[in-house]
């Protein structure tokens, strides 16, 4: 009778089912405007204006929809079972994000360990290089391909050494993982002052990371001949670090939102799903960065 499953249910209070809401269809329309705007912009039908309208709508979407959820949470409309739904939902969302990055890591590994050596004539593929590139392609890593694509006329480019700025960035993100954990413990112990301070430190570290990333990008573009167009190395480098940077940006914004909420006194030591979801997300971008540091910058 008393199994593990039953214990998670509170049969005396009902699972909260929201009544009709305009936000979902507004959200779908927002993404449509955003993407249609981007299509027209890329196709040069018109400027970035429809995309910009979509971006404004997107801000409205997050503010509006989240306001409803925060309000319902503050009113105590979510029982523990609803809380568990949110947790599971966030967990599976993060797993889908992991798989998105997996596609780009897969591209990196495939190029580096299979298709580039094959193009260079490894093993039985010797004719690839001889017939296609007259034996001229010296396939190694990093590479921008047999035709040395990229911004420089001589096709050369330089990479960013791991143990310079990227190592500092690694330290920053790892430190931010520590500070958010300190904040979490403070929240559980009811120490709001430490919570507020360490949460602020966490997102400041996040923005610091982003600043350094932007400095690194501009260095790569201006001085190193390393751009998106620098063959497969530039493609994998910028797409992996770029999407990671985008996720850090999102995570940092989420941290700021949560910080405003903790400043307003939201969350209790027992119930703070919003905080935890953001913390999970922050650890996720942290782990992705470790993968980037090892496989993109280092080895």
């Amino acid at each position: 009778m008393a199994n593990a499953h039953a214990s998670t249910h509170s049969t005396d209070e009902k699972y909260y089912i929201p009544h009709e809401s305009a936000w979902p269809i507004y959200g779908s329309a927002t993404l449509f405007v955003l993407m249609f705007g981007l299509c027209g912009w890329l196709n040069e039908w018109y400027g970035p204006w429809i995309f910009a309208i979509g971006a404004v709508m997107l801000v409205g979407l997050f503010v509006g929809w989240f306001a409803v959820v925060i309000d319902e949470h503050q009113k105590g409309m979510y029982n523990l079972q609803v809380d568990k739904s949110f947790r599971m939902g966030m967990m599976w969302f993060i797993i889908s994000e992991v798989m998105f990055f997996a596609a780009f890591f897969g591209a990196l590994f495939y190029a580096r360990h299979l298709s580039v050596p094959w193009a260079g004539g490894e093993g039985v593929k010797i004719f690839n290089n001889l017939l296609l590139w007259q034996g001229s392609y010296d396939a190694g890593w990093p590479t921008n391909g047999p035709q040395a694509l990229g911004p420089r006329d001589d096709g050369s480019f330089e990479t960013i050494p791991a143990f310079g700025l990227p190592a500092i960035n690694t330290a920053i993100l790892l430190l931010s993982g520590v500070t958010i954990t300190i904040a979490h413990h403070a929240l559980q112990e009811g120490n709001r002052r430490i919570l507020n301070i360490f949460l602020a430190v966490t997102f400041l570290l996040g923005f610091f990371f982003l600043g350094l990333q932007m400095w690194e990008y501009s260095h790569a573009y201006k001085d190193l001949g390393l751009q998106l167009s620098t063959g497969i190395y530039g493609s994998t480098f910028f797409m992996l670090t770029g999407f990671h940077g985008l996720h850090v940006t999102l995570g940092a914004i989420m941290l700021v939102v949560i910080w405003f909420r903790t400043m307003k006194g939201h969350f209790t030591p027992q119930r703070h799903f919003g905080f935890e979801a953001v913390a999970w997300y922050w650890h996720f971008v942290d782990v992705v960065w470790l993968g980037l540091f090892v496989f993109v910058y280092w080895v």
Partner: protein
Amino acid sequence: MANTAAHDATHDAHDHRPQGLKRWLYATNHKDIGTMYLVFACVMFFLGGAMALLIRLELFQPGMQFLDPAFYNSMTTMHALLMIFGAVMPAWTGLANWMVPLQVGAPDMALPRLNNFSFWLLPFAFTLLLLTLFVPGGAPAGGWTLYPPLSLQAGDSFPLTIFAIHLLGISSILGAINVIVTIMNMRAPGMGLLNMSLFCWTWLITAYLLILVMPVLAGAVTMLLTDYFFDTAFFTAAGGGDPVMFQHIFWFFGHPEVYILILPAFGVVSEIIPTFSRKPLFGYESMVYATASIAFLSFIVWAHHMFTVGMPLAGQLFFMLSTMLIAVPTGVKVFNWCATMWKGSISFETPMLFAIAFLFLFTLGGLSGLMLAIVPADFQYHDTYFVVAHFHYVLVPGSVFAIMAAVYYWLPKWSGRMYDEKIGKLHFWMSAIGVNVLFFPQHFLGLAGMPRRIPDYATQFADWNMVSSVGAVIFGFSQLLFVYVIWKAVRSGETAPQRPWEGAHGLEWELPTPAPYHSWDTPPPREVITKGAMH
């Protein structure tokens, strides 16, 4: 039961039921959202079907008759995208929306607003995709697989296609999250995972597949987008990239995707065959394990779609053998369905007819899949009409027949009305005959060497193409009967009893008919669960 009925009566007084357009635009009720998914899928099915009829019209005779070749290629591409992402996947999500909460004893889906967001992304995504028909350069014409470099030669349609796929991916992922959370967190107390209906089980596993592979598709098409607009070199050999890499990433998504299309069908058939055989399902647990095995194997077989593109011998052997392994759990399923019918007291209502046709014709499609798995044989079959015949056998009399079976089976519960059995049977026989006339000759055409995705063909292929086109007309137009039979049932069908099928087991049949707008507001009592979950 008395318990539930009394419970519903007491709640009618403050039963919140929005009216008018808002009920649909702002929906949070799983039944309303499920209905919208199903109606949307039906519209897309007819739109995609119209495109298929245009293809068969052009192929009715050799020579170029009606369509411009580029438009013909657009039709094959758009037909596939519409049918996969617009018809079959939304139909399954619609069925999950309707049935999962009823079958696990939950008051609704776990995240109702997210649920509506998932649905409303679909019409917007297809607006983007269908707009491509009207932009300079025409709709995408490089095949639904979007292989570069061909797909990168598209005109203005290119970003529209890519972003439509992004929106569809978001919709599927959020829908899948909802299904997982509902099943894992919302089951009535006392309902263990192994008391659950097989439809819920197969959908649960499908949802895991969706979450793991839709983001990979998003990544693949994003790389296409940056190759097209931002000079990246993922798929450009000159820059060290590789067009074959796209195929690997795409099929890492694509192969699990075909199981996403078929696994819920296994669930539906596993509900219907026991009902009309009046016997419990044979081998319930082995069905669950077989489904999980198929899902696992689906991640390690992808390169069997690319044998002819070139890969190391070890790769060919591995992907051939892993593909053949799938026949083992699938064989377990087919055996169990047959064993369920063995010595059963079988009656042949329309859902059962569709389920039996599924059993025969899906198996046939699976066996031609085994032929395709053999590397040297695949060198011969690849990109011929044999492949077209194979995947249409698993998708049309496979997935689509199972969706139709599910609609006939549960329509009385949804609408409170019975459909007209005579028209239902007529629809079945027209469909079953039509689909075989349509697709069986394509096996012969493929084995004789007719390539797919070409609007013209050599004259020796004329006879069977003509037969196939006749089948297409029979199959296509008989689907109007499907709409008619549903419309007629909903408008003026006989009132359905609570349990219209005497052999039916499952929590959904413990509810009144039609299922009340809010059901299982409080979890069903334990004895109802045990009664419902009689395997």
